[in-house]
């Protein structure tokens, strides 16, 4: 097998791990906006823990998609056309989340904020579920023919793998974001997140563990991938113990390592398949039949090898710059925007404290 194709399989695994581990807490914080508090200031504390970084984290997803196109176009073309409907829904979720984060604080009425809070929460939930479902389906198989096109209707993918994968990413994001908020927030948000990380997070990680296990059983696994599964479960257990001891940093590392090792075990378990066909194993998309030419893969490998460490460097720096916990006291007062026009101001000014 072409070593460059293996390299690119690994790079794409790294890009998806980057997305799930970094954007995982952004999506989880987004979902928690729906239920974790009723207090506006606490919601803003939560939102501002991810404020400076969420957009940069989302680029991992974009680059993972583009990387699939650049290295395995057959995979990119088949997976996304077969999963046309869930990907459309995922994109709408991501669009909704992005504009909601940015626009929520731009108008100060309860109704406006309520709409965009729902946009952040539901957008995050929808995106996490659909992306999880899609990843589970590419690891466990889809009905594709010899050209990589779908056999069956638009909803033929709907089944247990999609549900387990969807719940896996939703659950992981919730658990991961609880330890993230434990590190990045202060006040009631931090307390509640710590409680969640100790009490509910282990339950949230069950679907992800089930998915990882399913991939091993489905494809037979190998020593390496089984080892990663075991390590992932150990990391989750470690995170849980630390969360119960209120060691916030270690708990975060434990759950994050579970995400990293779990996704790694799934990619290792799939190897060398990219998208197995449930119709006929002869139609499987694999490293051998879906990879680009060695020239393209070689050029892209060189550029990735140089740029990825730089990206990790400046993203790490951004976390360093914003390393302080966000406390309720750091949240500025809502700024009411009034027209700067003399004769319009009386009409637009709200009633005092109304």
């Amino acid at each position, binding site marked *: 097998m072409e070593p460059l194709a293996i390299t690119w399989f690994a790079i794409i695994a790294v890009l998806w791990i980057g997305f799930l581990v970094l954007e995982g807490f952004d999506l989880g914080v987004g979902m928690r906006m729906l239920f974790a508090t009723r207090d506006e200031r606490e919601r803003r504390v939560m939102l501002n823990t991810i404020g400076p970084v969420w*957009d*940069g984290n989302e680029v991992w997803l974009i680059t993972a998609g583009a990387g699939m196109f650049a290295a395995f176009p057959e995979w990119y073309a088949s997976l996304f056309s077969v999963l046309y*409907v869930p990907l459309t829904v995922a994109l709408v979720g991501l669009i909704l989340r992005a504009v909601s*984060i940015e626009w929520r604080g731009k108008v100060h009425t309860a109704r406006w904020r309520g709409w965009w809070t729902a946009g952040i929460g539901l957008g995050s939930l929808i995106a996490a579920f659909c992306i999880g479902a899609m990843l589970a389906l590419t690891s466990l198989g889809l009905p594709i023919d010899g050209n990589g*096109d779908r056999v069956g209707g638009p909803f033929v993918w709907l089944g247990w793998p999609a549900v387990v994968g969807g719940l896996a990413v939703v659950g992981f994001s919730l658990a991961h974001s609880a330890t993230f908020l434990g590190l990045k927030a202060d006040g009631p948000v931090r307390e509640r997140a710590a409680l969640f990380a100790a009490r509910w997070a282990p339950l949230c990680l069950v679907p992800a563990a089930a998915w990882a296990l399913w991939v091993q059983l489905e494809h037979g696994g190998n020593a390496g991938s089984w080892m990663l599964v075991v390590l992932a479960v150990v990391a989750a257990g470690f995170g849980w113990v630390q969360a119960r001891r209120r060691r916030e940093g270690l708990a975060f590392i434990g759950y994050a390592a579970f995400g990293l090792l779990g996704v790694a075990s799934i990619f290792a378990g799939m190897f060398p398949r990219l998208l197995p066909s449930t119709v006929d194993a002869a139609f499987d998309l694999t490293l051998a039949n879906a990879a680009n030419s060695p020239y393209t893969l070689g050029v892209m490998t060189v550029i990735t090898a140089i740029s990825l460490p730089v990206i990790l460097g400046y993203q790490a720096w951004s976390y360093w710059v914003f390393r302080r916990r966000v406390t309720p006291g750091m949240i500025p007062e809502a700024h009411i925007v009034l027209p700067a026009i003399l004769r319009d101001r009386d009409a637009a000014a709200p009633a005092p404290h109304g």
Partner: protein
Amino acid sequence: MEVLDIARWQFGITTVYHFMLVPLTLGLGMTIAIMQSIWVRTGDEKFLRMVKFWGKLYLINFILGVATGLVQEFQFGMAWSEYSRFVGDVFGAPLALEGLLAFFAESTFLGIWIFGWGRLRKSLHLAALWCAVVGSWASAYFIIVANSWMQHPVGVELVDGRPVMTDIWAVLTNSTALAAVTHTLFGALIVAGMFLIGISWYHLWQRRRDGIDTVVPVPPGERRAGLIRRLTDASTRVIVGEAPGVPGRDRADHGVWLWSLRFGAVMAIVAFAGTGLTGDWQAKLMYEQQPMKMASAEAACHTGSSFSILSLGDPGSTDCSDVVTLIEIPGALGFLATGEWGADMPGISDLEPQYQNQYGETIPDDELYGSFAGSEVQYVPPMWVTYWGFRLMIGLGGITAFGALVALWLTRGGTVPRSPWIMRLAILGILAPFAGNIAGWIFTEIGRQPFVVAPNPDPSGIDGVFMFTAAAVSPGVTAGEMLFSVITLTAVYAVLMVVELFLLVKYVRGGVASAMPELAPAHRDGDGGDDDASDDVDGDRDRRDDVLAFAY
């Protein structure tokens, strides 16, 4: 409707929409980076205010560009899987490079810039903005490299009927891409220029209307001598005032708008000249690389060298017998295409048989082409679109530059005229370069039809690399799915555009204070009140230094 038609409408709608947001991001980002650089160098508060105000509008717009860009990244695979498979060896690379080399930097550093006020050294904070802006320009470059490969495939050889990349450098330095990216970036600067003019005009006009700024005649004795100065110097002078009741409506505020307006006007004029030069370069390349597109842009049916000013015919026609040319400039077209006055440019009636000869009269009878297999190929793009798209682009660009010139002259006295109609025109003018950009893209994409990857006409070593659009669509996706996505996305996009416009209008009307809460005493309830008293209201806060300068 066929799956192909729906997929094309979807690509058209989502891409045009995305490109309503992107030019403002590209142009305004550069503008704000320049303003912040001046602020860091001079410490002049006026420039800080500009950065904050224009930066707020920039971010409201930026996010919608990011959000809709996600669709662009994935829809090749979703709706155009055959295209993705055919071009995958070469087309995916620039997209991945965009992510790795441009988009990561843009998004990460923009986050640092937004939240970094007061946390980073001024110079470092400025550097973060420059990284974000350079990232966005680099992103435009990589996307245009990808698009230009569809207009002019280079750096590949055909292996088993599929283009395989042999030279990434040739792909990255594709002449079509270099011409198109410079053209697009100049176009984006025109957008930003008119945005600055329109909004600044509005505020200068409101200041006059509110009686804050007044205009007095310059006594004849103080006027400068000389013919040129007599013409360019204003006969009036502005007395800048302030409105103590309105946060931010002070003397510095006048400078914010006047400087922004003039900077925008100069930028729009210079950038228009830039689009002219790069557009000329593009026309010459198009004449070599896509002669049919050039001919259909001119509705030039017969080989000749006249540039059409007005041609009429049946809209949507792809048939030359309907076209009647009313006004034309003899010789000009040949000059535009080759640099030689009067040189002949091939017309449609000569090109069509050539194309039929080279690429076949019918679409191959292959099951890949679905219901299009064996059908006749229409090599002439819809001339109504290409002809008017081309003219709309140039015309709107010209009107814009003229408008910017007029704006400079009308504001030579230090403020804008009182006329509400000129103010409205200035605001309406914001839309002109947006429309021009869109017209240009529609022209170049429709003009490429019936190909999704256009063939190189001359034997160039890269021959036979082309793909019909009809063959590119996903075979496995149903019309129902495509309709679902196009309706969903269009509806979501429409609602978001309404919200974006609402927010932009709200923050524009708020003036600088809308982006600088520090200009307004906290907890105003209409009657002002002094700053010390309002500080007490914040007694429940931690130390004031801890409060985030920006927070969602």
